[in-house]
């Protein structure tokens, strides 16, 4: 156990800091002035698309978890925006790298990294939530094409996206997990309708997407026909890990402490209320646990279970941090939308609701507990039932 940096890593950190200092004028308030230029600058210097081969538009470095962490920390320190995110970069690109054809890699990865193409994800369906594999969107063969019909839900960037990566049932007679293909197509293809889905926060964070005989070449399948379930699952795991990011939680706890120091009721600071302060300390212990747990998962081979609990614990913790903020604000905590008394633009209430959504989305808490008990603790799977 040694958390000090080697001389090599110390030098690397200095290098990142120097880069950030030199380019501090290119962003403001945590956002780049020119997003595409900033993205190019980051890729060129290895601070975005770091481990993606140069041939496909990345920087081509060896994977190094510690360097990634150093980069992350230095960017937070400098309040500098990271490279572009989005489902294309975080989910499609790793998938293509793993199972895409040479042509698919060459064609899609570069433009996606450079922010020229925005993607959305077509996995979930209204009838299949936790039971993702039960998807019904069908792709019927028609010569060299498929005709795709059905609908998808929780498609977050569908309104902006030029392209979609989508799971469709290409082999209706195959078993549940084996008849699915992972396929790419433009959102401008005729037969696609996008309907925004307003969430409880009041914003349309998600969409429904409806397909009617959408014509897509068979060549757009990634990873082989009928292999879509397995292709998708690799990156789903990745997504679940992201959902409990302890750095974000730590930042929120910091804001909460500031809030409690600043706010008063009848002239008494909230932080001086022992009941709220005790709850704050309970949450702080949890935030630190998740932070060190995250540190551990990066460098400890025995941390399988530690990795598996991140989504469940991290999302719950975010929700609890927001709950304490609302409670600490008292009546001010119910304000929302706008108005002179509103705090933090209503973000505490928004997070309280949005984080509950994250507890449910990306594998509900119940599904997470199934996974932890079955894969983590080796307990029996849900037995098959006699009759549905």
């Amino acid at each position, binding site marked *: 156990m040694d958390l000090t940096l080697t001389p090599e890593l110390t030098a690397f950190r200095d290098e990142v800091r120097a880069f950030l200092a030199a380019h501090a004028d290119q962003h403001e308030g945590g956002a780049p002035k020119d997003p595409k230029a900033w993205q190019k600058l980051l890729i060129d210097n290895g601070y975005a698309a770091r481990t993606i081969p140069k041939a496909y538009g990345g920087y081509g470095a060896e994977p190094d978890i510690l360097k990634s962490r150093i980069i992350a920390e230095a960017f937070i320190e400098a309040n500098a925006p990271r490279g572009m995110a989005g489902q294309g970069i975080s989910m499609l690109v790793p998938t293509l790298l793993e199972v895409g054809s040479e042509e698919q890699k060459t064609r899609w990865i570069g433009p996606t990294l450079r922010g020229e193409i925005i993607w959305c994800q077509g996995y*979930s369906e209204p009838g299949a939530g936790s039971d993702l594999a039960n998807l019904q969107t069908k792709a019927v063969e028609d010569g060299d094409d498929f005709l795709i019909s059905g609908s998808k839900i929780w498609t977050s960037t569908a309104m902006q996206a030029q392209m979609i990566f989508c799971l469709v049932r290409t082999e209706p007679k195959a078993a549940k997990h084996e008849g699915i293909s992972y396929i790419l197509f433009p959102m401008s293809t005729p037969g696609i309708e996008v309907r925004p889905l307003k969430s409880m926060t009041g914003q349309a964070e998600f969409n429904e997407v409806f397909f009617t005989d959408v014509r897509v070449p068979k060549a757009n399948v990634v990873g082989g026909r009928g292999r879509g379930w397995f292709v998708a699952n690799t990156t789903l795991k990745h997504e679940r890990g992201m959902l409990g990011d302890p750095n974000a939680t730590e930042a929120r706890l910091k804001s909460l402490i500031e809030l409690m120091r600043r706010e008063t009721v009848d002239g008494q600071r909230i932080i001086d209320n022992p009941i709220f302060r005790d709850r704050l300390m309970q949450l702080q212990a949890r935030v630190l646990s998740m932070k060190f747990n995250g540190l551990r998962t990066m460098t400890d081979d025995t941390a399988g279970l530690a990795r598996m609990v991140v989504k469940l614990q991290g999302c719950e913790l975010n929700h609890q941090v927001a709950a304490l903020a609302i409670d600490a604000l008292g009546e001010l905590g119910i304000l929302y939308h706008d108005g002179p008394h509103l705090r933090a633009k209503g973000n505490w209430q928004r997070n309280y609701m949005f984080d*509950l959504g994250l507890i449910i989305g990306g594998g509900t808490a119940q599904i997470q507990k199934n996974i932890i008990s079955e894969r983590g603790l080796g307990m029996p799977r849900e037995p098959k039932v006699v009759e549905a």
Partner: protein
Amino acid sequence: MRFALSEDQTLLQDSLSRTLADLSPLERVRRFADENQAAAPDIWAGLSELGLPGLLVPEEYGGLGLGLVEAALAAEALGRVVAPTPFLGSAVLAPLALMLAGTDEQKSRWLPKLASGEAIAGVAISEPIAGARENAGVAAANGRVTGTALFALDTAGADLLIVADRTGGLHLTQLAHSAEPMPSIDATRPLCQLTFSDTPAEPLASNQALERLRDAAWVMLAADTLGAAQSMLDKAVAYAKERKQFGRTIGSFQAVKHLCAEMAAELEPARALVWYAAYAFDKAPDEAPLMAAHAKAHLSEIGRFVARTSTEVHGGIGMTDLLGLHYWFKRIGQNRQLLGGPERVRETAARLQGLIA
């Protein structure tokens, strides 16, 4: 001795529920919220036909002359359908303030109009109960009030306002210098900021009136949460029986069943607490403040649990606007903080028992 609803009380609740199903279905609530309506005179007019505004008003002033138990049943029914009405301010707190502290003239002037639904009353008592934020608070002198009152209830189209000053004294005024909306999570009960500047106001003379208003308000908010939470449990159970995943209704999974059982196990005894708190307000005044505090705080806590758990049982769809489940979630959330969050209310509960040095 009987600790159960009487036949009359059951009838009241049933007829109210039936009427509300017509007057305030989800589509109506949605329209109210989406259009940021400040009041729903259609709903209040319909409820006025049942006599709801005059529930607590003595018969001599044209009301039904019922007690807080009946008011709690009404609040529960309103919470069940998240109805947008000025019930708390106009039918409970303002009539109580007048009955407790009004002169005969004030009563004669206002109670009949409130009872018929012809007049609406707003109420601004947040500062002396929940604590002052942003240096708000109202000062009173020589029949005039000056200052700011936040979180004022049911002020939309109000013909009179009941305002508490910083020392807990109550005042009746027909004019506010200005009324600014305070947009909150629960669009079904709009809140306002009132600013007074040397505004004429009639004092309502009574030492304990504010405490009684507080107790009544706490019981009403608890009952509203009870109704809203019961709805959320009912909706979760219905959804779980219908929704299929992995080839089974999700309601056959033990995890989902147990979540529903936990909601029921929390709610059912809480119902008895709300009933008793209302009963004590009417019949056992010594116990009333403590029971009101416990009802408010406890329903806030289990309301939060039910709101969250029911949403979880609904899965992703519970997070969207499609089923409108969030109206209940937010109503419960707003009840939790209005007129004091549970921590503050429990402090009062401890103080009432001499447990604070």
